[in-house]
């Protein structure tokens, strides 16, 4: 036996699930049936997503500004009780946006969450996280915005206290261009549900 085997055996003896009785076959089939019948229709690659893309395309033409500077820092301050993540809004010259797609969001974002704005102090917006779609655990996210930068978000184009947002980021930079905004913006929730 190697040292590793010894260590593994010792850990296994402490496995809290060792005494867990398997689910009875009828319970398993019930669970299976419930999963397949009570859920919303399975993800379809055409249809809803495409319609959403068309609808949102028009809105995006109006969005100006933003840059491709995704290489901003993302720092995670490790506190056991509340994990805080810092993000920055993009900043830069006006640009055109292509309609958002599930694939780009799924592949391009390393962090995505739903959260409610709990405070705005100067350029710093604090959001309390309600759901993480992708990425490391976080309780609170602080977004640094520059004047006008939040206009690139879907919805009203600005952060408001008490309002709920869906925000995706890559390497610490918030993804705009139809990928972040108010949670009830047209199609945004669907986009997140389908991407993550």
């Amino acid at each position, binding site marked *: 036996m190697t*040292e*590793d085997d010894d*260590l*593994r055996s*010792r*850990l*296994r*003896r*402490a*496995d*809290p*699930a*060792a*005494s*867990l009785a*398997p*689910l009875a076959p009828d319970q*398993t089939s019930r*669970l*299976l049936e*419930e*999963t*397949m019948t009570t*859920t*919303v229709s*399975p*993800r379809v690659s055409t249809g809803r997503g495409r319609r959403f893309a068309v609808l949102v395309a028009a809105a995006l033409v109006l969005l100006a500004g933003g840059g491709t500077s995704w290489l901003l820092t993302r720092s995670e301050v490790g506190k056991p*009780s509340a994990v805080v993540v810092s993000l920055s809004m993009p900043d830069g010259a006006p640009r055109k946006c292509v309609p958002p797609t599930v694939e780009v969001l799924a592949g391009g974002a390393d962090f995505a969450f739903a959260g409610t704005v709990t405070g705005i102090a100067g350029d710093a917006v604090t959001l309390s*996280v*309600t*759901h*993480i*779609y*992708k*990425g490391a*655990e976080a*309780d609170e996210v602080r977004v640094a915005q520059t004047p006008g930068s939040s206009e690139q978000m879907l919805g009203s184009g600005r952060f408001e206290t008490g309002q709920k947002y869906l925000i995706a980021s890559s390497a610490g930079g918030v993804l705009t261009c139809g990928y972040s905004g108010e949670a009830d913006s047209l199609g945004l929730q669907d986009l997140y549900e389908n991407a993550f």
Partner: protein
Amino acid sequence: MKLDGRRARFEALAPVVIDAVRRYLARRTDPATADDVLSETLVICWRRLDEVPADYLPWAYGVARRCLANAERGRRRQARLVARIAVLDPPRGVLDGPVPPDGELAAALSRLRDEDAELLRLWAWEDLAPAQIALVLGISANAASIRLHRVKQRLREELGKSGPPGGHEQSREGRRP
């Protein structure tokens, strides 16, 4: 027809996923949360069946891990309010496990960072290889391999510290002459 294919595939993999994810959750949370998170995990597996890879268990563990984190975030918020009550009424089943608890191991694990201890759990309890652990945690296979190696070493050190027969567990209390 396509739907029948989906059904068949889901029916083939779901029982295995159910069994594995139930264990995964029983190791990490209370029974009620485990039930909720299991259902949610299955729904996501069903909804995203097209993306489920051939080696589906690490993928399913990754989904369960995220769902559990989300369930616990909501609970943590409430828990801050009722923390004192929870102390007075601890979860059941902690004291009467079937196997005498390995206190020394539990203590050694608790001294590790939680993300490090999680690597060990995935390795020993879920029986995953480093590349599969990497998939669950969303890190590179290389990083998983290196971190796992280090944390095994750390655990051995901690176990050595906490009480070899006739050991020196109290030695930290006194200053060396």
